[in-house]
């Protein structure tokens, strides 16, 4: 156990506890923490996020790859436990205590109050991914091929439901073709 590994674990424990509104909500903070406090680059963060997008299951399995990239196999294990275990323990405790708050008007206040904060954080997560993918990371100039892909995906999903897994694969292929 070296210091870097402990620090990595602590950062993801913090991210875990702060993930009100789910995985997307915590993306900006995760990007900031892994890029500024560890030697992950913005491009690596973006690529790891993209790999996570094509995987099945809970949408933050990408954290394992961040751990792997920064500290090898043991890093993946440490980050996986640090990011998922605290929330599981919190949920287990809450599941057993929740019934006691059933009659409390404060329970509803917390739910209603946190809802718009969670939505704001989701928009912030969206902005973080847009900033990494729609402008060139090197010089911050607009990447028109990427913007076109994002616009087509947005319009398609507003028009009708399409499996997002298919859309991201089409988006990846389209970018390869557009920039050939």
């Amino acid at each position: 156990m070296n210091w870097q590994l402990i620090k990595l674990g602590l950062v993801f424990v913090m991210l875990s506890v702060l993930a009100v509104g789910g995985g997307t909500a915590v993306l900006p903070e995760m990007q900031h923490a892994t890029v500024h406090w560890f030697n992950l680059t913005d491009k690596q963060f973006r690529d790891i996020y993209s790999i996570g997008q094509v995987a099945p299951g809970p949408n933050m399995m990408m954290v394992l790859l961040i751990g792997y990239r920064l500290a090898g196999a043991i890093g993946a294990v440490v980050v996986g436990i640090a990011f998922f275990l605290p929330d599981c323990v919190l949920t287990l405790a809450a599941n057993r205590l929740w019934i006691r708050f059933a009659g409390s008007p404060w329970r509803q206040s917390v739910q209603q109050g946190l809802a718009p904060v969670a939505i704001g954080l989701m928009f912030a997560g969206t902005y973080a991914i847009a900033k990494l993918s729609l402008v060139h990371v090197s010089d911050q100039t607009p990447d028109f091929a990427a913007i076109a892909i994002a616009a087509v995906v947005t319009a398609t999903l507003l028009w009708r439901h399409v499996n997002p897994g298919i859309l991201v694969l089409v988006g990846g292929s389209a970018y390869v073709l557009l920039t050939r």
Partner: protein
Amino acid sequence: MDSVTPQQSGTASSNATSKAASVPLGEIFKVFFMAGAISFGGGVVAYLREYLVRSSGWLSDEDFMSALEISETLPGLNSVNIAVITGDDLRGVPGAAAAVAGLMLPGAVFVMVLGLLWNQSRHNVTVSHFLLGIAAAAAGLLLVVSLQLGKQQISKFPDLFIVLATFLAVSVFKISLAWVLIGIGTLSIWLYRPHPARPQAPEHLPFHRGPRHNHYRR
């Protein structure tokens, strides 16, 4: 376990009551593993609902909505939190562990395999461009998901103000998430504090679709 709510069909409730008493851990693992393996492109919560309410009958619709409601208020991923709650309700802590392990295993293996391949070929221009295209598509996807989940919040005051303040604090002013939650979160909860003269309307909660239920069946 006491009886389910009246609007539940008889078969579903008796199913849930009899099955839940003796669900083997392996069965819990298997059901969550299926949901975790099949949910390409996200939407794990919808798959979980399909498996837990429709095919296995372990939960009534009410149970599921209640579990989802708790999951949304707590930090963490909704799908993982639902796994903890369902597993705990069925078989206690071992049940929760089996559910979470089953849900996460397929995605974890998938991500690690892809990650190792990426590690070998990340200087390949085609791979790099493919991943960038995925991120661009994901940006569009996240925008639509945020708009859809936040439909009620962005069309009403003071919620819109809180959504904007949260977004600006994180994205423009780069304020640490902890401070945003302490500051704006507390303010927002205070705005919705219990008030005897103003009955609270739960209809506009973002993800809430089921009828209101004030007891949680253990």
